[in-house]
């Protein structure tokens, strides 16, 4: 267990933090996810305030995975809504399948008279209609149109919406815990941002990274891990790289190394399976050039500069 339990909590919880059955819902992390103190605090702040938590950060820092672990840590079910460039806000609430109804009316199948048969709740609609509190992940909200988040403001504020076609109103019994991730491809509207709690997941430092790797590869030799991390952080320091390798790529790379049974000695001077770390042709070329020009790939932390040697 890496995430430390929260300290210094007030002895009694205020009404807002209590759920109906009186238990105290507070995220403390899970063994499978290394959450830093500020991140745990941000999650709990969002839960306590009943506001969406907006997560940003470099790709591969675990924004999406966090939601699954929040759900797991709190023992709640989870819904995911993956946003695409064509997603519309109303689809998250419900979809009225007109074409199906039109088709049914033509062939006389289905109960065309009842429009409710053709209304399907979206992820947000299902989260509102659910009888228990759950975690809803809205993944990569920045992929959708610029106005997308604004279209959800009222629903998120009031936790209710009306199905226009039937006049039914769906009111959330329990405010779902909303986690929103953004890859920063578009700016989000101010009105939406004002309602969020924001956390920026920084790139993990070496100590945190060791813990993260330990979760995925618990039996990795310490010396081999050192070599792996030296190469990884050295690569990230290279200004020529167009796409820096991320945590998930590091984990994949270690899997590849372990499976090939590479020794620590071999790793000292080379970076095998570089394709697992570098995804752009120019980056692989740049590394190749560096090698042919006699550039040295460091094998000790001392070669990495003062930031890594304290």
């Amino acid at each position: 267990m890496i995430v430390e339990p929260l300290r210094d909590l007030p002895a009694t919880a205020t009404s807002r933090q209590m759920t109906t059955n009186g238990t105290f819902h507070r995220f403390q992390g899970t063994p499978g996810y290394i959450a830093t103190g500020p991140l745990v605090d941000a999650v709990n702040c969002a839960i306590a305030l009943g506001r969406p938590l907006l997560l940003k950060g470099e790709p591969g820092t675990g924004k999406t995975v966090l939601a699954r672990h929040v759900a797991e840590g709190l023992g709640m079910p989870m819904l995911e809504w993956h946003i695409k460039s064509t997603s519309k806000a109303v689809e998250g609430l419900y979809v009225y399948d007109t074409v199906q109804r039109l088709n049914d009316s033509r062939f006389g199948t289905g109960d065309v008279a009842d429009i409710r048969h053709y209304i399907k709740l979206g992820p947000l609609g299902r989260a509102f209609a659910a009888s228990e509190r759950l975690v809803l992940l809205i993944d990569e909200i920045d992929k959708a149109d610029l106005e997308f988040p604004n279209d959800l403001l009222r629903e998120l504020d009031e936790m209710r919406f009306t199905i226009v076609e039937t006049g039914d109103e769906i009111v959330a019994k329990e405010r779902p815990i909303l986690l929103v991730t953004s890859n920063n491809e578009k700016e989000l509207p101010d009105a939406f941002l004002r309602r969020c709690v924001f956390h920026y997941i920084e790139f993990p430092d070496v100590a945190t990274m060791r813990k993260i790797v330990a979760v995925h590869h618990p039996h990795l030799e310490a010396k081999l891990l050192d070599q792996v991390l030296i190469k990884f952080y050295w690569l990230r320091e290279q200004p020529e790289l167009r796409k820096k390798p991320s945590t998930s790529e590091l984990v994949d790379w270690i899997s590849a190394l372990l499976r090939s049974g590479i020794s620590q000695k071999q790793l000292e001077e080379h970076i095998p399976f570089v394709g697992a770390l570098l995804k752009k042709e120019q980056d692989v070329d740049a590394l190749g050039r560096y090698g042919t020009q006699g550039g040295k790939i460091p094998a000790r932390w001392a070669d990495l500069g003062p930031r890594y040697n304290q």
Partner: protein
Amino acid sequence: MFLDLFYGLRDEGVPVAIQEWQAFLSALAQGLHGADLLRFYHLGRACLVKSETYFDAYDRVFARVFKGVEGQLGDEVTDRLLDWLRNAKDLPELTPEQLAELERLTSDELMRRFLETLGEQSERHDGGNRWVGTGGRSPYGNNGTHPTGIRVGGQSRSRSAVKVAEERRFADYRTDQTLDIRQMRVALRRLRQLTRTGLASELDLDETIDETCRNAGEIELVFRPPRKNDVRLLLLMDVGGTMDPYVEPMSQLLTALHDERGLRAFEPYYFHNCVYESVYTRARMLRADAVPTADLLRRLDERWKVVLVGDAMMNPAELLQPNGNIDPRRHSKTPGIAWLHRIVEHFDRVVWVNPEPTTEWDFVQTAKIIRRLFPMFPLTVDGITEAVQALIGARV
């Protein structure tokens, strides 16, 4: 003094409104900061600041506002402070009216008592200073220059929140000074004009229903083309000579543009110092790469958006005289300024992006002349955003 944080942020241009401030107070009232100044720092950031580009501003303001407070003893938590902060949870039980009335008072009161407690604390525990002073070398490992400095849980105690703020690790995320390829891409994403052209592949529901009705219930599906970006972009880049220091930011700009596959068409060309008879398809600018500028003007219609990138810094003769090209092998009877004129007149929307700092523009004669022709923007994320606005926004 507590409100200094709020107004300090607003003065720094961080868009923080009363709504966020209330959320922050409510979070404090619920004790989410756990009586720890560092967690208070993170809580404030989570509630008040909504973009990592403002983290640096937050750090500066936080360091300024809380410097004196913390200086004496760090964020070591005292029993008294803890007691008091526990009491803060009573606040939400007040009626909403009381809460609203007390809001200003509450925050000042909060700060006053905070200070008081801290003051008393430093008198009684002189050891605290030393403990914090040597914190950097303590086994907790939270020293000031840690690589990226994420602390895990309890280790944060040995670290001062103001020191965290003073480190200003987020200075690189500021948009007014730095040029990050990701942010650049965000700025360029605005370069879009959606129109319906091309293959009809999207179901037009309204039309389908109308047609079906007209067809007496026989289903008639109607399709329409999806909305697509209609922006065509011509990029002309200055390379070599005085532009050499900018090769890196330029290649970032180019990469960002290449990745913008959303554009309908995109053509980059290179020139040296000023555009003459020819522009070049590659940065090495060999004769084989040359494309006559006149051809370009013939082929591309006025709807193309044009971005020129260059420092606009050259000998005035290169711009104004015939045969001004600095490369003697390439004679050009028409002065550069005439070519620039033709570009401005041919295309509807043209901008010049200048990587030199804006303060230098007035000291360069040629830059002053070119500014009269082109709207000029600095090569920063904010500058690019404005340039994009000038290319597609309403005319002013």
